């Protein structure tokens, strides 16, 4: 399934209630390295398809979620599984690194 842009109202349903692991990409317009994550996430989305969900959340427009998870550095990926923030990846990392983290929850 495609990468979904979510807001704070959709967070509960799309992320916390999901039966499969969800990667949430916390990003902002100002953050150049965040844009560099896009091709990596697109490849993961293609490869794992319905086994995972991937969501993008704009931290400026959704400050309540960003602050709930104490996001003070982006790019930040949080892998949610069964409603819990299971792993956090801060900064730009290679696809392999992100994929290894993800596989722990598959």
């Amino acid at each position, binding site marked *: 399934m495609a990468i979904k842009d979510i807001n704070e109202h959709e967070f509960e349903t799309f992320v916390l209630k999901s039966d499969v692991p969800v990667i949430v990409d916390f990003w902002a317009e*100002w*953050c*150049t390295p965040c844009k560099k994550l896009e091709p990596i996430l697109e490849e993961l989305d293609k490869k794992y398809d319905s086994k995972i969900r991937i969501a993008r959340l704009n931290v400026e427009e959704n400050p309540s979620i960003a602050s709930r998870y104490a996001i*003070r550095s*982006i790019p930040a990926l949080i892998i949610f599984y069964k409603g819990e923030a299971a792993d956090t990846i*801060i*900064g*730009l990392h290679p696809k392999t690194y992100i994929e290894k983290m993800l596989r722990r929850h598959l």
Partner: protein
Amino acid sequence: MREIDIAIIGGGPAGLSAGLYGARAMLKTVVLEKQSPGGQILLTDIIENYPGFPRGINPEELTKRMKQQVEEFGGEIILDDIDGLEKQGNLWKVNGWENEYLAKAVIIATGSEPRKLGVPGEKEFTGRGVSYCATCDAPFFKDQPVAVVGGGDSAVSEAIYITKYASKVYLIHRRDKLRAEMIWQKRAFENPKIEAIWDTVVTEIKGENKVKELYLKNVKTGEESKLPVEAIFIFVGMNPNVDLVKDIVKLTPSGKIKVNLRMETSVPGIFAAGDVTEVPYEQVSIAVGTGAIAAMTAVEYINKNFG
């Protein structure tokens, strides 16, 4: 397994420049990048000292153009994470996470990454006030006091950038003068939000679930103090990314790849370019220059040994 002529490992300015020259020599040239092309320059907001752009250029735009130029001449840029390099006859086998490549010549352009400060609290608070990227994180600290550690170009230019957001920027440096380009120093000293703290090191980063204060020590007087800040941005130099080749080519005592003026390493068929080499100064202009030399030497090497 893909058979190619030149494998370039790393897609920052050095690798992309090498890719351009390899492609224009009409050799099968592949740039292997593990994240996405651009490298360290993506962490800054504007590049002002790359000739040809009198008003500076956005690093993303510069990367896009360099990438286009490689592809224009038939060079390929592939997203792959390389974790092995071994000799196979007179060729080199490059092992990636996605694919394997068999190359006649290899150019190492793996760059460098920000050095850690190495103090208690740094790891714990990474992402919660400890940052290595001002353009990513400065907006989180609007109207709040922050610290920058370091005295080089990155530290000083990023301190100036952060003043767009923060209420106050303490520039903490272990010496009594900066190393940064004079133009950056001048701008920093004229900026009312920046206050330098000289001869001082950070000994610990304290907080609860986020950074709250820094423990400082004056290296001349030994005096200790505390500084309340919401964030600490660390720019204390770079470490070369040499993991892939550290047991293959000779390194300098500081851990960078030893090269000659033609960007040859100690091993025939392996060349190097950019920040990962011992060539001084981490600058885009130098990276692209050494990238060009490495590729031209690699082309000669291929013509001589495989022609």
